[in-house]
């Protein structure tokens, strides 16, 4: 086993700095709440001004009157940590959150795939840094040791278990998550380093401070099992990105959308899913919201489950090009509405097999630009009335894979009103035209000028008295004077025998 610990030393600052990069140019501190707020973290500019951690905010203001003070955002930090954990899941299946700003991941099984330890660590670090977080990393055979080394800034990887005692012994005990009282008592006894604590009699140490202290020391040295609780990504993806500045044209959203799609792709990969339906909400500025204008939302539906960022981005770009913003946007929220299992893609045996880059299916491209109601796939519907025998469905609904959390329940639940005469009429031997007119066309004038020849019929279709679209028609195949074959009917709805003639279809 080989563990790497990714420590985010300035997470409290980074969650604010991501949203407003300009603030990094000025003294900036994050404060704890309460009556006497203290400095939790300060940026380099504030440090230069003399501001240190755990100072009172009033003292910090005395050092730098123009300091920007923000209250600590615990929720944002937790979300950021979950984001980093999800990122790491792209590299290894075993990832755990061990502290409020640290994640450990088991990497022994992934080194070969990613081209060695150095390469893998570089990839990990780059992927965390690309999200705007400062990080510190360490490698050790146990998760506890990796955490200690990361905190101590020991970046040299420790690969062998036998090297652990020498490396850990000089480290201060404050690198471990012991209670402050434990640390204070040990310090009073002159025990400040890991090595000194480990040299103490184990029975006495356990009696004085509890068994967990001894266990922690043993786990760091791989002398006791150290089970880790695996991080599991949430079942539904929803991520909000606050934009650096309000944006009022859609093209400028590209950067933010890219970032969210990257996150979504990482989440999908970690859960082994592909997205079928997703939506992007564009949240307007507060003064617009107060006027009662709801967020603009764009929904995306894909023809088949997809995960590749290039694919998702292409679909989104086409669709967003048609969105008009009623007001400027300050934040965007990407949500996965429906997902389906999607197996990974095997790498090709030969290099040229990889040439087929991500190709966005035609259906997705057409629908993202033209809309779902324009691009349809037909299906037959068991119904005698010709108008209702064709149903236009959206192409995605024919995907037969099971959905993980589709919001509708039950496979293909039919909640249509059951009709008394329902029976499939597909196997009819009666002639049916390939084209059906959108509206039956009345023929009164056309029949007067030249005779139409009836070639076949009549075929009585009488149905629909139960749902208000009652019809009673005699259908004929007729030849027009110009030589075309059409489907016409005589309307007997009103019980008379001399109803009007209508043209309803074309035998194209």
């Amino acid at each position, binding site marked *: 086993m080989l563990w790497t610990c990714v420590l985010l030393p300035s997470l409290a600052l980074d969650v604010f700095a991501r949203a407003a990069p300009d603030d990094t140019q000025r003294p900036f501190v994050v404060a704890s709440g309460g009556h006497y707020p203290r400095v939790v973290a300060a940026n380099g500019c504030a440090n230069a001004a003399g501001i240190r951690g755990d100072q009172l905010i009033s003292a910090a203001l005395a050092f730098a009157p123009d300091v920007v003070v923000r209250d600590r955002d615990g929720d944002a930090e937790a979300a950021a940590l979950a984001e980093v954990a999800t990122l790491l899941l792209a590299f290894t299946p075993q990832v755990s959150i061990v502290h409020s700003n640290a994640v450990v991941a088991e990497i022994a099984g992934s080194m070969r795939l990613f081209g060695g330890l150095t390469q893998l660590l570089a990839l990990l670090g780059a992927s965390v840094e690309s999200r705007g977080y400062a990080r510190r990393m360490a490698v050790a055979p146990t998760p506890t040791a990796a955490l200690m080394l990361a905190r101590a800034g020991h970046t040299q990887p420790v690969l062998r278990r036998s090297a652990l005692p020498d490396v850990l012994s000089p480290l201060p005990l404050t690198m471990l998550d012991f209670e402050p009282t434990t640390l204070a008592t040990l310090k009073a006894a002159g025990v400040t380093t890991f090595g000194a604590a480990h040299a103490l009699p184990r029975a006495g140490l356990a009696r004085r401070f509890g068994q967990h202290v001894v266990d922690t020391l043993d786990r760091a040295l791989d002398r006791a099992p150290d089970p880790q609780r695996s991080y599991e990504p949430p079942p539904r993806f929803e991520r909000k990105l606050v934009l650096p500045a309000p944006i009022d044209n859609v093209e400028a959203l590209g950067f933010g959308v890219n970032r969210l799609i990257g996150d979504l792709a990482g989440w999908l990969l970690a859960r082994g899913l592909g997205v079928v339906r997703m939506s992007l909400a564009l949240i307007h500025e507060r003064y617009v919201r107060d006027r009662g204008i709801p967020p603009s939302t764009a929904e995306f539906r894909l023809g088949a489950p997809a995960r590749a960022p290039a694919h998702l981005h292409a679909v989104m770009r086409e669709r967003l090009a048609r969105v008009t913003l009623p007001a400027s946007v300050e934040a965007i929220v990407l949500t996965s509405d429906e997902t389906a299992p999607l197996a990974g893609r095997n790498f090709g045996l030969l290099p040229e097999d990889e040439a087929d880059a991500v*190709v966005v*299916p*035609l259906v997705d*491209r*057409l629908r993202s*630009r*033209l809309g779902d109601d*324009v691009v349809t*796939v*037909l*299906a*037959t*519907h068991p119904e005698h009335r*010709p108008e209702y025998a*064709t*149903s*236009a469905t959206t*192409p995605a609904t*024919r995907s037969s894979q099971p959905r993980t959390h589709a919001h509708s329940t039950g496979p293909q639940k039919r909640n249509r009103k059951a009709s008394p*005469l329902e029976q499939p*009429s*597909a196997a*009819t031997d*009666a*002639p*049916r*035209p*390939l*084209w059906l*007119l*959108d509206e039956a066309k009345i*023929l009164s004038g056309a*029949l*007067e000028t030249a*005779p*139409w*020849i*009836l*070639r*076949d019929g*009549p*075929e*009585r*279709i*009488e149905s629909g008295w139960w749902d208000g679209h009652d019809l009673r028609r005699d259908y004929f195949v*007729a030849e*027009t004077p110009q*030589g*075309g*074959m*059409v*489907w016409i009917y005589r309307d007997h709805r009103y019980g008379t*025998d*001399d109803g*009007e*003639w209508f043209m309803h*279809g*074309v*035998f*194209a």
Partner: protein
Amino acid sequence: MTSAAHSAAIARLLTHPAIWRGGDCASEPASIASGFAELDAALPGGGWPRGALTELLVEREGIGEVRLTLPALVRLQAEGRSVVWIAPPHRPYAPALAAAGLDLARLIVIRGCSSAEALWAYEQALRAPECGAAFGWMQAHEDRALRRLQVAAREGRTWGVLWRRPGQRASATAAPLRLALSPQQTRLAVRVLKRRGAELAQPVLLDLARTPGAPLYPLPDGMPILQRTSTSPPPARQHRLRTSQRKAS
């Protein structure tokens, strides 16, 4: 060398793709059989061209113009490629299409968009490798747009069909194949207006009465519809009742 060997050598030489003789058709790199032997004989390569535009000038609706293309579409779908219909003039009637053997899940129908959007969709469909045939019923075409579509069809290896009314016939076209369809008694006359090959004087006559989607076979003798004010009942032939619940009771 005997004369037979000579002629065999010459024949082999003449199959070179760079050589084209006025009397015969250019060899089409790939084609899809139309399902009608007489028509295949008249088309270069022995079928509808894959990777090129085909223009079909239809004299009027209802003469079997779509039925003419259905066997090729069924064949393309069997290869796993899909079919896209852009802006068809009427609603495609699913039960008839399914009865004709078309896989409806592989038939994408685009209706109700502007002509610019339709043109865009047409080009996308022609370029897409998964699309085997793209039919477009667009109204007007600029020459430039047409040439673009032809390039797209060639790159995507898609059979593109442009449906046109005969009035648009006079203009020159970028499509390498252009056919005019008109009814002749009970048959469909296909005149080859343009092909990569010699001109064809005689139209090809096809009997579409037996094809799937045809109204009836054999064609019975008809009777004219009398004036609409007439009170005469419908002709007293077999009265095929489908669902007349009320009448049955």
